């Protein structure tokens, strides 16, 4: 029985006539690294704001650690178990790195000084520099330090990779990837950088126009999706492909199919056609992502 750290059912929230979140179903299992993907403006940050109680939820259910999300000014105790990196990565500009750490530390009884020192070092954060003098990338690292130093059960990271240089990304991914196994931490993060998501996420959900269009274990999806390239000896008549052949393009004697399910049956169907030879290719997350946005 898998318990879910974050769960939403039919979550809905409007902003002045526009449904920012429109019937969102999410289920984030404990100990998973969950990638939350979507276009700009698809509703990722709104969802996160709803989960953290920055916004009142419209309708539908939302639960964090099994407790219903209370909305504005509720659940302070819940937030003690969560580490958060905001979308804009702003903190108090007049404080130095050291001051902000000293300011944040007392709020969290399970703060680990050794983790704090470690992250200071691997993220290369200068203690005496003011936050206003930090680049966006360094502010992100600082927020990550604050989020990851207090033994949080759940990390909610809004675009944590944006603005980081490749070396820092590598460092960050290593740290994040190790957390679930070492501490049982669940990591829920939104990102546009699909390559990084592919590297460490074990589950993903794609959100478009406020609702999820795809969700599941990343490994399963990669097996489920395949690209088929069918080459005919002569240009074929139109073919009624089996369900699962989602994106079919034809160029003369070559037909390219992006199959989202039922692959073996479609391959059989292709092979049974006269004069056809079939090649199969794996599909990257980027292709899956683009395909779902295209068809939505």
């Amino acid at each position, binding site marked *: 029985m898998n318990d879910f750290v974050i769960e939403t059912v039919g979550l809905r929230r409007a902003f002045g006539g526009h449904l920012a979140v429109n019937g969102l179903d999410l289920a984030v299992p404990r100990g998973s690294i969950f990638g939350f993907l979507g276009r700009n403006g698809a509703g990722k940050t709104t969802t996160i704001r709803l989960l953290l109680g920055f916004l009142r939820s419209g309708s539908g259910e939302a639960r964090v650690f099994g407790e219903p999300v209370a909305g*504005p000014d509720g659940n*302070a105790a*819940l*937030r003690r178990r969560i580490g958060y990196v*905001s979308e804009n990565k702003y903190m*108090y500009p*007049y404080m130095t790195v050291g001051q902000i750490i000293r300011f944040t530390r007392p709020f*969290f009884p399970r703060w680990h000084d050794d983790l704090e020192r470690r992250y200071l070092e691997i993220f290369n954060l200068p203690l005496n520099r003011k936050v206003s003098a930090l680049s966006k990338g360094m502010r992100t690292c600082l927020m990550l330090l604050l989020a990851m130093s207090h033994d949080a059960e759940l990390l909610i990271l809004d675009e944590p990779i944006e603005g980081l240089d490749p070396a820092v990304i590598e460092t960050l991914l290593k740290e994040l990837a190790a957390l679930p196994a070492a501490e049982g931490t669940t990591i829920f993060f939104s990102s546009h950088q699909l390559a990084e998501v592919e590297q460490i996420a074990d589950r993903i959900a794609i959100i478009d126009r406020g609702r999820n269009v795809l969700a599941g274990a990343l490994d399963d999806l990669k097996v489920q999706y395949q690209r088929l390239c069918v080459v005919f000896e002569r240009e074929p008549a139109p073919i009624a492909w089996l369900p699962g052949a989602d994106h079919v393009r034809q160029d003369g004697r070559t037909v390219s199919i992006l199959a989202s399910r039922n692959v073996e049956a479609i391959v059989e169907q292709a092979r049974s056609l006269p004069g056809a030879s079939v090649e199969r290719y794996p599909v990257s997350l980027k292709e899956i992502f683009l395909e779902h946005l295209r068809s939505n």
Partner: protein
Amino acid sequence: METRWRLLGMAMYLLIALALSSLNPASTNVLTTLWFMLTFLAISLGGSGVRSQAPLGFSEGLAGSTQFTLSLPVSRLRLLLVRAVAGMVETAAATAAVACLTWALIPNLRQTAVPGDFARLVITTILYLSAPYCAHVFFTTWVEEPYSMAYATFTLILLLLVGHRLTPATDIVRAFSQASPLLTHRLPWPQLTASVILALILAFAAVQIVRRREY
């Protein structure tokens, strides 16, 4: 901290005003000038007090550090209260400092007023200042910074006028004129109560807004 610069600026301004006024032997002019300036200071601090230490103000929203603050495991009530109290303490300290300076620099005052009365005047001033301070705190919760100060000043003037018209008890300005401790040798309790009640109402309203607001 941001407030230090504001305080310093105010202090310089006040010192200059004091210096200029000390040339004029009439002590009441000085006090009136000071009264206006301290009011302005309190309003100003009401904004920065909340803003610089815990930006729960409207102008921050998504663009500022509000999201960071709100993610901390404390209730919004506590966040607002702690900052508001800190700002009020700064206001009180500034007032006390200004008072000492005034006492030191204006011989006329020392000659005409009893120290105990002057102390009472200082207390009166501090308690009165809670009202303009809370007025600005209230406005920062839903209006952007420069405008919130204007609204706060305007509202304060309005409330003072209304108070003046209603009854002597609510006429806060009276606390510095006819009911001034310098004259009555007492604290003007009715007016002080009115000030504090006004401040509390504004503070309460600010809390209610912050608790329900979306960020």
